Every structure is written in C-alpha cells, then in structure tokens.
C-alpha cells in the first residue's frame, strides 16, 4: 500500500501515465479546490477592478476592502429560495447547470501545470479540451429550453449559436498551432532549417515543442503566430459569453438570458461553470501560445544566475502584494469603527508576506517555478477579461455573428494556409 503511494512519487510522470488512481484523485481534488478558490478570487477581483475602472471604490464594507464579499455572496446564494417555474421540465431543469459545471471542470484533466504536473497526459489533449467545451453548449440549450419562458429560450438559442460559431474559429487557430509543432525551425523565422518532426495534440508535448524550438508559438513565423493568437483570444471571449460578446446574458437586453429562471444555488452553479470555463480556455491559450509553464527566455538566458533570478519571481510577487495590502492598512481611517477592518487587513498582509517568504526557501523555490509561471500567464488573461468587460461596448447579435463567420473564419483559414506554406518552404 505504501509502495503504491511512494512509487508514483519516484516515477517522473503524470498519475495517468503511471496508472496510479490514488494520486490522480489527489491531483483532481487539488485542481478542484484551486479552481474554486480562483473563481471566488475572480468574483472579488472583477467587482473591485470594474469599480476602479469606473472611478469608484466597489465593495468596501464586508471585509477590509471587500475581501470577504464573495463569502457573503455565497452565503446569500446558498440560503435563497429555490424557485422552479411551474411548467418547467423538471429533470432537464435540474440537469442543465450540472452539465455545464461537469464539462467546465472536466477540461482540467489535461491542463499541464508543469512537465509532470497534470492529472494525465492524453494523446488527444487539446482535442479533448475543445470537445468538452463544445459539450457546454448542450447545457445552455437545455437550460433555456427547460425554463419554459421566452427570455431564457431566446437567450439560450442566441448563446448556443454564438458559441458554435466561435468554436470553429477557435478550432482553426488551434490547428494552426498544432501545425507549428511539427514544423521545426530555429528562432523566430523558422523557414525550413532543421528536419520536420511529428506534430502532437498532447498539451505537455506542445509546451515541450516550444521549448525545443526555442520560441513561444505566439512569436513563431511572425506574424502568423500572433494572428492566430489574436483569433483565439477573441474567439475564447465569445465562447465563454463574456463582454463584449455577452448579449445572451445582458441584463438590459434579455433579463439575464438563459439563467433567468434559476435562483440561489443553481444560479451559482452557472456562475461557477462560466468562470471555470474562462480559466480553462485561458489555460489553453497560455499553453498553446505563451509557452505554458516555461519561464521567459528558457533557452537564451540559461545558467545558474539567470535561473536564480527567475526563481525569485514567485516570492517577490507575493511580497509585492503584501506591500500593497500594507499600504492599504496605513491608509485606513484612524477611527474606532475601523479597528477590526484594519486588523483584518494587517493580518491578510502578514499572511501574504509569510507565503512570499516561504516561496524564497530553495527547495520550495525550485518546485514552484512551473506552476507559478503557468498561473501568472492565466492570471494575465483573467485581468484581460475584466478589462474587456469594462472597456468595450456590447456587440449586437447580428454584428456578433458577422464577426464570427465573416471575419474570424476567413482569417483563420488564411493563417492556416499561410502557415502550412511557410512551413514547408
């Protein structure tokens, strides 16, 4: 039994490859907890960032600077009354949020946080993630249909039409990158120097191909990698029904679209599924284009000193966050009513500083590298999501479909053709 547990630790593979069920379950639980924590943090971050973009403060009361606001939201949603429309199709009504949540979380099975830090390394990794996110369309259609009311039905049909259209553009951008994994070239302009290897659909192999070809795929065959990255970045925002493509769930247009009739815990499942899907497609983008878990310049800036410099980044990040929190503590009003909040914020700053100091210890520092860079890249995408929501006006539905079919699809096909031609020249 103990051998079963330690044999996996000695082998340098993912739990799926080692066939170890126990460690696969442990990884799954860690990912589940991590993603849920990330969704909670995203909730708070979205409200604070949107507020600061609009020159206001956002939630400030519930905890110091609103840090406990997501917990208050969660308690509110859990204790709300569960209203089901009387003519609703009850089994389908029940199963729709479950389906969206299951597909959103199933995509994390192949997300690589490091060269061996994934639950499994499927041979069809990226195909599996795209397929599972196309199953979420079914959940939305079911939700709109089962609610037996006009706004959810129209919202569901619009949302699923939008998601299906942008899936095609996403798929073409992904195929361009898969093509690039097999076209070995050195440096930025890889024009045929070096033998062409075999391409791969496996997520871990795609990042290893970026390491071997010494270039992140966003910079390969410049500007083709950049254009395909742009296509995927736009399509992934439309795929997760986020602004500026959020007409199906906009409040002034369709009174919350396909999740109008859902209240309380069921609605929170939708929200959880939406944020989890956002993080999943962001991790696809980070893995395919931005080099996954690789630190910046893994091949050109090598050597012990550069490794040391880059390994200090995680600790420095947390110390920076602790500094910002400490500045918030200093700027708190000096009134008796604010004493509890000041103490809370000071405690939070202390916890962040402690984590930063722990990340400076050499054994931890070496192991946390890959995971840190991956999460940093995904966090950039999360910030971009919130920035888009604050900045861009909403697309009308016909404009949305026009962009998906008449702009992104031809662009995707063009990039694919030109990449194929440039790669074999």
């Amino acid at each position, binding site marked *: 039994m103990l051998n079963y547990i330690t044999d996996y630790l000695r082998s340098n593979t993912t739990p799926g490859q080692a*066939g170890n069920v126990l460690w696969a379950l442990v990884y799954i639980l860690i990912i589940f907890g991590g993603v849920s924590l990330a969704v909670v943090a995203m909730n708070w971050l979205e409200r604070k960032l949107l507020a600061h973009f609009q020159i206001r403060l956002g939630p400030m009361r519930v905890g110091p600077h609103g840090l406990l606001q997501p917990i208050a939201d969660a308690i509110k949603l859990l204790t709300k009354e569960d209203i089901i429309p009387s003519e609703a199709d009850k*089994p*389908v009504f029940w*199963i729709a949020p479950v389906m969206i949540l299951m597909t959103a979380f199933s995509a994390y099975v192949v997300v690589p946080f490091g060269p061996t830090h994934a639950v499994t390394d499927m041979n*069809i990794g990226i195909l599996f993630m795209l397929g599972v996110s*196309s199953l979420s*369309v079914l959940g939305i*259609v079911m939700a709109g249909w089962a609610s037996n009311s006009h706004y959810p039905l129209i919202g569901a049909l619009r949302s699923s039409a939008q998601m*299906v259209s942008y899936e095609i553009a996403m798929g073409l951008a992904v195929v361009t990158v898969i093509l690039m994994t097999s076209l070995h070239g050195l440096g930025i302009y890889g024009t045929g120097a070096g033998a062409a290897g075999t391409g791969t*659909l496996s997520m871990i192999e795609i990042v290893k191909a970026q390491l071997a070809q010494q270039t992140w795929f966003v910079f390969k065959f410049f500007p083709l990698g950049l254009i395909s990255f742009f296509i995927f970045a736009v399509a992934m925002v439309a795929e997760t029904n986020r602004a500026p493509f959020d007409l199906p769930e906009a409040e002034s247009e369709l009174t919350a679209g396909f999740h109008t009739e859902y209240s309380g815990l069921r609605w929170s499942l939708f929200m959880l599924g939406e944020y989890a899907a956002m993080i999943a497609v962001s991790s696809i983008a980070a893995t395919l284009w931005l080099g996954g878990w690789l630190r910046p310049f893994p091949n050109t800036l090598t050597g012990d000193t550069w490794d040391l410099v880059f390994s200090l980044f995680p600790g420095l990040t947390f110390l920076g966050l602790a500094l910002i929190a400490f500045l918030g503590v200093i700027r708190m009003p000096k009134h008796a009513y604010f004493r509890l909040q000041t103490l809370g914020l000071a405690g939070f700053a202390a916890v962040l500083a402690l984590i930063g100091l722990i990340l400076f210890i050499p054994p931890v520092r070496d192991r946390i590298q890959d995971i840190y860079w991956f999460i940093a890249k995904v966090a950039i995408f999360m910030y971009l999501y919130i920035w888009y929501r604050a900045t861009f006006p909403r697309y009308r539905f016909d404009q949305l479909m026009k962009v998906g079919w008449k702009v992104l699809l031809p662009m995707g096909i063009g990039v694919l053709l030109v990449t194929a031609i440039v790669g074999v020249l």
Partner: protein
Amino acid sequence: MEPVATPFFFYLLSALAVVGGVLVITRRNPVHSALSLILTLLALAGLYLMLYAPFVAGVQIILYAGGIMVLFLFVIMLVNLERNQKEEQFNKTWLVGLVAAVALGTLFVIVYAKGQALFPERLAQLPEAQNTQQVAVLLYRDYMFSFEIASLLLLVAIIGAVVMAKKRID
C-alpha cells in the same frame, strides 16, 4: 497506457449506453430522447477510449455529441408541437417491428458466438501514445482519396441543407 479496472468500466459504460438507447426509443418527449442519445454517445466515447482509440473518442465527443446533437436539439425546438406529444407514439405495426428486430439480434449473437474461433489469439496491443500520429499517417497517405471525397460530401451536405431549409420568398 493500460486501462484501469477494465471490467468495471466496461460494464458501467455499456449499461449506460444500452439504457440510453432504450430511453431514446421509448420517451414521449423528443427532447428527452435527444438527451438520452447524448448519454449513449458519451458512453460510447468512453468505450472507444477503452479500445485504445483515443482519436475516435475525441472525434465522437466533438462531432457527434457536441455538433450533431446540438443540431438535433435546435430542430426539435423548431418543430416541437404540443399536440404531437399527446398523440399515439408507436405506429400500428409495432409488433412486427419488434419481432423482426429481436430476430435480427438473435442472428447477430449466434453469428458472433459461432465465429469466435476466427478471432486472432492475441489482441493487438495498440500503443496509445502514438495513436493520433498513426491515424494521421494512414488517413493522409493510404486513404487520401476517401478523405477528399468525404470533404466534398460535406460541402454538398452544407449546400443541400442550406437550400432546403431556407425560407422561400415566392
């Protein structure tokens, strides 16, 4: 990559597939039938994974469960009539159909059981790690012609479906 706990997952997935199939042909509401068909398709994708065919499993999930079934659900919502669900669901010749199908099934099982001597002794251990690459090599080298014909077929199907479902203005 060896499958883990093969008998358990085989029986679970086949039970899900067969139960889904039974629900498809017996439900009154076509939306429920479509959802049961999705269950069957996903269970079959799991069975393909157990048969060392990950690429076919991935294609099944994307195309069948994520594409064709969305199409079915859209069309069901378009043509769903309330009165249709209160009518008789099975046609007049249901008994003949049932008998014919059971006879067909018995024929299958007899043929399989008697022909078991023809199967090879050892199962080919197809390595799962290179499945996509090998499928790609076969598809683009030996079956290139069929590949091109299939893409032409899809083009014809797209044009046909658009032309037939268009609203006529005359």
